């Protein structure tokens, strides 16, 4: 039972990170019907940017203030990068065939990934061990670290905040309107470009939090890690129902737990393979994903 609960905690932690990253995919898809393949690389970039900020400010600020500053500064920088990405790689192709945008997304992904390698080198970089106090809580025989608690709480808060933003604010309503029909939304006086930019800002900023969590929790980061996290988050978004915000959250957490149990009870080498089996099975049973039936509320 201890083992089961420990695996559940392991899975929830990584699942929350997947969920945060999956939100970026699902929001952009909702509004633009585009899979932003460069999203995973923005996540990797955020870990590097966060590391630089942390190293620059270490010592100048108290630990708590350092963490908060790192998060806010990184989110702003990555959100800006997301907007630049939209401006340069996607907006010029908005009227072009769908395939052009997909190719452009893949190209952008390669540019960011190799850019990271050129700037920071191909060797793994390491977050300082003291970023977050290495405190452990032992409940029964289940170990939870302070970092895990922070990951779970902050992810939950951000996801709830996003849910309320989309469902209760004017801009959120505009976003949902654009997701249903951009032309009709424009006729109703909605500034579609502003909605799209907002989508990229929020999606990228959430991805940035995910990237920082990866860096602070696992410490070792490498230039091509965006690919594997991006892929898992992409699968999570599809499992939950792409374009559907609660779906991405659910998909991320389910995928994290699924991975933990497969790795723990079977073999870690099967985790990725069975992830795709799960994806295929869900696609066959429910082509729209687990929460994909609420078409009218797609974002």
């Amino acid at each position: 039972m201890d083992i089961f609960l420990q695996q559940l905690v392991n899975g929830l932690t990584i699942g929350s990170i997947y969920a945060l990253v999956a939100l970026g995919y699902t929001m952009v898809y909702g509004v633009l019907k585009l899979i932003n393949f460069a999203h995973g690389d923005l996540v990797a970039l955020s870990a590097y940017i966060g590391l630089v900020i942390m190293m620059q400010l270490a010592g100048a600020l108290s630990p708590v203030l350092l963490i908060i500053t790192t998060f806010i500064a990184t989110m702003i920088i990555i959100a800006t990068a997301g907007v630049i990405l939209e401006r340069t790689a996607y907006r010029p192709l908005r009227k072009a065939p769908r395939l052009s945008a997909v190719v452009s997304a893949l190209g952008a992904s390669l540019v960011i990934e190799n850019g990271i390698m050129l700037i920071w080198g191909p060797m793994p970089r390491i977050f300082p061990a003291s970023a977050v106090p290495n405190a452990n809580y032992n409940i029964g025989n289940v170990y939870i670290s302070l970092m895990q608690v922070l990951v779970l709480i902050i992810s939950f808060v951000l996801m709830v905040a996003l849910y309320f933003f989309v469902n209760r604010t004017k801009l959120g309503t505009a976003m949902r309107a654009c997701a249903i029909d951009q032309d009709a939304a424009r006729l109703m006086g909605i500034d579609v470009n502003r909605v799209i930019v907002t989508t990229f800002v929020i999606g990228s900023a959430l991805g940035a939090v995910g990237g920082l969590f990866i860096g602070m929790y696992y410490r070792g980061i490498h230039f091509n890690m965006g690919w594997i996290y991006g892929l898992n988050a992409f699968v999570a978004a599809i499992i939950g129902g792409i374009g559907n915000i609660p779906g991405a959250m659910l998909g991320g957490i389910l995928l994290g737990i699924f991975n933990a149990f497969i790795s723990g009870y079977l073999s870690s080498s099967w985790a990725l393979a069975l992830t795709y089996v799960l994806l295929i099975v869900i696609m066959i049973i429910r082509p729209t994903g687990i929460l994909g039936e609420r078409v009218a509320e797609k974002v």
Partner: protein
Amino acid sequence: MSSFAAGVIKIGVQAPITGKFASEGQSIDKAVRLIVKQYNEKGGILGKKLEVVTCDDEGKAVKAAICARKLVDEGVIAVIGSYTSTCAEAAEPIYYRAGVLQTSDGTSDTLVKHGYWTFFRNSSPNSAEAAFTAKFFLKKQHYKRIAAISDYSTFSTNLTNAVVENIKKMGGNIVYTGKITSGAQNFTPILTKIKSFHPDVIYFGGYYTDGGLIRAQMVQLGMKADFVGGDSNDNPEFIKLAGKAAVGAYLVNVPLPEMLPYDAAKKFLKAYKETYHENPASIWTLFNVDGLRAILYAAEQTKTTDTKKIADYLHNKLKDFPGITGPISFAPNGERIGSAYMAYRIGSDLKYHIVYKEK
């Protein structure tokens, strides 16, 4: 024997003096020249002075074969090198046909499988590390429940399998073997599973990039088991990745040159530093010149430059010759017997402390 200039015995160096491994190759060349200088100051061997002929193989197999022909034509009796297994192997048959002795630090197992009497390998292969690790586990640490993990690379799989087999052969109890995906970062699922087997130790035969995280996550999961990492965990980044969890972790590797406990090593390193104002590039330099020292010693003992007789002496009579990297003896296939491996514990000062070595 090929002809050689009157009064001079020629020694060849085949090493990557330029290219990717230039620092290693140059270090080997410098070290060989230093040893030769020391011998010549004492009057050389057998009443003749030694002379070094260097050929740059650039770390490339084609160049290695060209170098081998050139050095054979120069009339060398022995060649030191090369640094890479690929180049050593490409040159092997040429030296064999010419009856020229060759000693290399290459670790590839194929090097000693051709049956060439001319070839002597000085560095320790993975099989020696595995045997050493098994002894460390059972004779020094007395581990009762052992878990072993590797990644999917050939190197890691072979090393870890060899360690597991050696432990089993010695009657040790392996409770778990498994594999991780290198670079996966999140190893908590497999570690949680291993925890349920209550091991005394987890052996990891992979690279430091994963090993450091495995150690950190073991501690985070409250595991009391020791961590022992194979040679590729020996990198400063391991300690950075593991953070405070690095304290108490064990690593098994051939020693850093400055950690060699032997008198010959201390004297050699001092002389090298005085001559070149730097340290040798790595332990591999020392493995190479140890081959040279053994060959020169054998020539002095047999009082001949007949390579067949020298090789016979090295194969059959040389026992525990005091090398820079530890006692030297050779198996019939030219493989060095015994190992220079050591086990280190990372102390609270985050430095290596030798806890176990073979005599």
